[in-house]
């Protein structure tokens, strides 16, 4: 079986990011990798709603968007 392509290079290519990272990347990534492990170590119930869920109450008072859908302007629709 072919091993996975390095994820970091793959993300760079997918998002068309600069090929090389800055001088501090490796040092910062070590810390971030440890933090990723840390938040996945502790079990979290599926019932736990992530913080940052949408707040919709204020939209009740907002009139419909007068501009309409941007999809209508897509060239393939014409």
């Amino acid at each position, binding site marked *: 079986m072919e091993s996975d392509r390095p*994820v*970091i290079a793959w*993300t760079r290519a997918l*998002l*068309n*990011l*600069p090929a090389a*990272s*800055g*001088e*501090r*990347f490796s*040092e*910062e*990534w070590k*810390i*971030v990798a*440890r*933090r*990723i492990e*840390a*938040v*996945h*170590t*502790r079990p*979290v119930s599926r019932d*736990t*709603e*992530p*913080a*940052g869920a949408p*707040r919709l*109450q*204020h939209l009740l008072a907002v009139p419909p968007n007068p501009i309409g859908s941007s999809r209508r302007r897509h060239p393939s629709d014409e």
Partner: protein
Amino acid sequence: MSEPWDLSLSAAAAAIAAGRLAPVELLESALDRIDDIEPRVQAWARIQVEDARREAERLTRLQRSGTILGPLHGIPIGVKDIFNTAGMETACGSRIMAGFVPAADATAVARLRAAGAIILGKTHTTEFASFDPSPARNPWALSHTPGGSSSGSGAALAARMCQGALGSQTSGSIIRPAAFCGVVGLKPTFGRVSRHGVHPLAWTLDHPGPMARTVGDAALLLDAIAGADPHDPATLSAPAPLAYAALLAEAATDDRPAAALRVGVPDRYFTDGLDDEAEELYHAAVRVLETAGCEVRDIRLPDEFEAGMDAHELIHNAEAAAVHVDTYRARPGDYGSKLRAIIETGLQIPAPTYVRAQQVRTIVIRRLRDLLDTVDVIATPAAPGPAPEGLASTGSPVFNRPFSFTGFPSLTVPCGFTGAGLPVGLQLAGRPFDEGTLLHAAAAYEDATAWGQRRPPL
């Protein structure tokens, strides 16, 4: 009488309201002070002298005709350079945003103007309110950092170049510079002050807030900027703000204003890496609160607390990456090395990890809220020590991060000086939307000590 530039915001506002001081006198005094001090402190990204003079003249004419626009009539304010200011460059301490002149004010800036304030200029920020430092220096020791990211706001206040300032905090960017500069910083509850028109660093962690020389001054500024804003949905479900300055004035008539307040002293985390002098000053500050009538209790932080701080950093980096990805793609070399590393690592954080971090956040918020049923405020050191020497780092936000992560309000008030003459802050944190209790406790502490009345040796 003191030089006008040396007056606190409250004292200057009272003098203007009573007709004893004209806005033009106060402004000219501030400009003289800036001429004298700014070359050494470098707190300001830009000062709009002529605009400020025109506004001061207008406000002076109004004052003479008997009209006071609001509690900040004629008060010079410094605004961190990530808040949009109509017609005034907002460069965010970055090459990317250099030359950007917004058409409209951020909501907080507009509200300051409506209350009569004069926007004197823009104070230095670290690049995009992150960690790459600005030229600002600490007025207490010019070879030390003023902290960040609201570096210029802290430095300008400490050096008596303005009466009030705006800052913002995503990790520790109000509390840390305020503590390092020996002034008061208030990070309000998430949703208390609108983020509209403030350049984001991480949307769910960003908090705009006031910085000032005294607790009462911070209350006056919070009165002006707090409240619902249709442009920031986070503000719309928040309970209406109180009249904080009036609340403090009422408490000041009490013989024992801090009586019945329960103050929690955490069992861990806030002593990790704490330097000896800062620890001694912290314990002394807690004893002062006890003497003022507070009931001091030991409290046990939730088990999930440390995981929460890891979650904060993941959310911070992922959201910062999302904010900057388009400009980073086009101009990676125009970012400072610290923010660039945040963006680059943020782009690699898996989406399920970001969601898990937000779930951990929900848990820590619930646990901390439960803990705040047993005490009214949590008292901690504001930073692991005084401002570090050197300008390459803005110091550690580690003690401030928990309250940016949970969105609970926090405040720092000066609590003493090290042997080298550097200020140290006492951080108080409280229940969501209960800024009133924080201000009340901080004012009681301030009245008992008056550390904030010292002036830097400039």
